[in-house]
């Protein structure tokens, strides 16, 4: 059963549609990521769920109850803001106890809960510190503790990690994810960082221009994106314009035929198509002479023009005359790979996906 459901939720700011006709069901106990570039409406959607913005149209139901117009203070959700919004005039304990104080929890119970939460976020003995004296990561944890203090049914996170440096950010991603799984709390997180979404989410909702572009498990979206936009936004990808001939064959730029796994997606057969192949699916074969003919299908001759070798992984740019490919491998798998070397790039059939090209004009 799904607790939170959005039906045709729309938010207009003047003539602009910040969120346009969004239908979505949030499964219980999962971590759902709203992912998209800035201005795609993900934060507005989260704020409507929190009750901080009212939808222009559509409805939001929670546990079978219509909460579309319920004020934020009666929804009983927890939220962590991008700026954290910890109250600077209160101590750590006062901040965490604030939602309990509002619920008139007995003082002893408040103290017990604050101690318990401080243990949970691994900041015991910090209760009496002013929040202004905490480090970035500590403030982050206090904000989360405060958001879950009253045991809300839903936790909302609005880009909560954006203020942290890269290393701390990665550590906090794991920490939040483990905490979420331990508490089993339904969580919605907004982020523009696809890596963060892939790390943390059970379900990713990719948004584009106020609409949902795709909903699915992180790997499903990565492996099988529905559009060029999603393919481009999630992970790195070689996206090549392709043409279809009348016999149903697919040709790469330069006229080279290529065999693909999926047939053209039902809808956009007539529209512009793109071939997607992820860099790690491109196999680089070395030890071939210049100008050798491709021994089998989907093998493209090319020249290595750039190598990014960072030790653990290796990324090679291969110039195939009409287009370039990026291949991801490891230094161990491709020893002796050098600039200017002629190689064969093999594109396994199962990894070649046809997707619809990005539409140029805006939807509205």
């Amino acid at each position, binding site marked *: 059963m799904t607790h939170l459901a959005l039906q045709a939720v729309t938010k207009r700011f003047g003539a602009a549609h910040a969120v346009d006709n969004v239908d979505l069901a949030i499964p219980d106990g999962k971590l759902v990521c709203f992912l998209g570039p800035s201005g795609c409406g993900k934060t507005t959607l989260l704020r409507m769920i929190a009750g901080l913005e009212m939808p222009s149209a559509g409805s939001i139901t929670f546990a079978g109850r219509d909460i579309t117009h319920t004020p934020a203070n009666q929804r009983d959700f927890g939220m962590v803001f991008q700026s954290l919004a910890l109250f600077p005039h209160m101590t750590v304990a006062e901040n965490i106890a604030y*939602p309990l104080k509002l619920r008139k929890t007995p003082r002893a119970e408040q103290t017990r809960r604050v101690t318990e939460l401080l243990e949970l976020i691994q900041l015991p003995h910090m209760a009496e510190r002013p929040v202004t004296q905490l480090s970035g990561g500590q403030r982050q944890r206090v904000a989360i503790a405060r958001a879950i203090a009253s045991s809300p049914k839903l936790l909302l996170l609005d880009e909560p990690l954006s203020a942290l440096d890269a290393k701390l950010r990665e550590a906090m991603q794991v920490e939040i994810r483990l905490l979420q799984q331990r508490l089993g709390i339904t969580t919605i997180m907004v982020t523009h960082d696809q890596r963060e979404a892939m790390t943390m989410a059970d379900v990713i909702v990719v948004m584009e221009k106020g609409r949902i572009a795709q909903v699915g498990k992180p790997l499903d979206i990565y492996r099988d994106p529905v559009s060029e936009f999603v393919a481009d936004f999630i992970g790195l990808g070689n996206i090549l314009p392709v043409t279809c001939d009348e016999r149903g064959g697919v040709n790469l730029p330069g006229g080279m035929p290529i065999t693909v796994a999926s047939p053209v997606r039902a809808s956009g057969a007539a529209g512009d198509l793109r071939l997607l192949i992820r860099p790690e699916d491109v196999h680089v074969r070395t030890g071939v002479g210049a100008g050798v003919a491709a021994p089998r299908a989907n093998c493209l001759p090319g020249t290595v023009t750039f190598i990014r070798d960072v030790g653990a992984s290796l990324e090679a740019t291969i110039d195939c005359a009409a287009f370039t490919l990026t291949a991801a491998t490891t230094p161990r798998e491709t020893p002796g790979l050098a600039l200017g070397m002629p190689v064969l790039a093999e594109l396994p059939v199962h990894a070649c996906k046809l997707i619809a090209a990005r539409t140029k004009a805006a939807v509205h």
Partner: protein
Amino acid sequence: MSTQGQSVSMLPMRLPSTLPGRLGKVTTLLATVVLFLAALPILTMIAMSFSASDTLEFPPHAYSLQWYRAAWHTFVSPDANSALSMGTALGTSLMVAVSTMLIATLVSVPAAYALSRYRFRGKPAVEQLVALPLVYPLVMLGLSLLLVFNVLPVELGMFRLIIAHVILALPFTVKNCAASVASIGPEFEEAACVMGASPRRAMIDVVLPLMRPGILAGMLFAFIISFNEFTVTFFLYSIDTMTLPVWLYSRTVSSLDPTVFSFAVFIVAIDFALIWLLEKLIGDEGVAL
């Protein structure tokens, strides 16, 4: 040739050390002149208050505490020809200043909140009106208020002064409060609301405590403005509601002796104490009221 080329290439390296130095000298000179001019009245006043002369001779040829003694006598036992003692005037001034401070603050906090958080019809007009007393000729303001108050059917008494002072203090209180609201950011209230606070509760628990520096600054500004106000008060006071500056002036007119300077030193000391308090309260966030 080569030395010239060298000096040209050296120039960018020299610029930072020489130019600011020269600028620094000019700045120091200007600052000294301005600060001297700013301090001149106070220095004169202090020098005169210690004068041993019976007249307003400047600079005094000898120094004594006689005018402080005279001032103290006036304060504790007003002479018969003085219609009003300084103590009464001081009491009136304090009453008016405290009332002005409280009323101006009570009006400014919600006004500043509305001005910096909401869009509404006539907002620019309200902003202009609040700032208007800053550019209004004070004599005209006093005269206008006098005309209006005189046609009112009720006798306002001290409230004539309080109303006038609130008008004069509002630009400062609203500005200080608005700056503090603007620095808070709406997410603090939103956070409180999501946690279950009603908008009123969020205001009391979060917004007001965070506005504290601005509110305190506004309060002290209001107090100081009211306590020192002369021009407008001069039009509106009555014999029962004479404030300290007006009392000082009337004394200067009736009997020109350096006693007034002794009083003035006392008033300036109060002002300085308040300004010191202001900086103490706002400069150091750790101080709790």
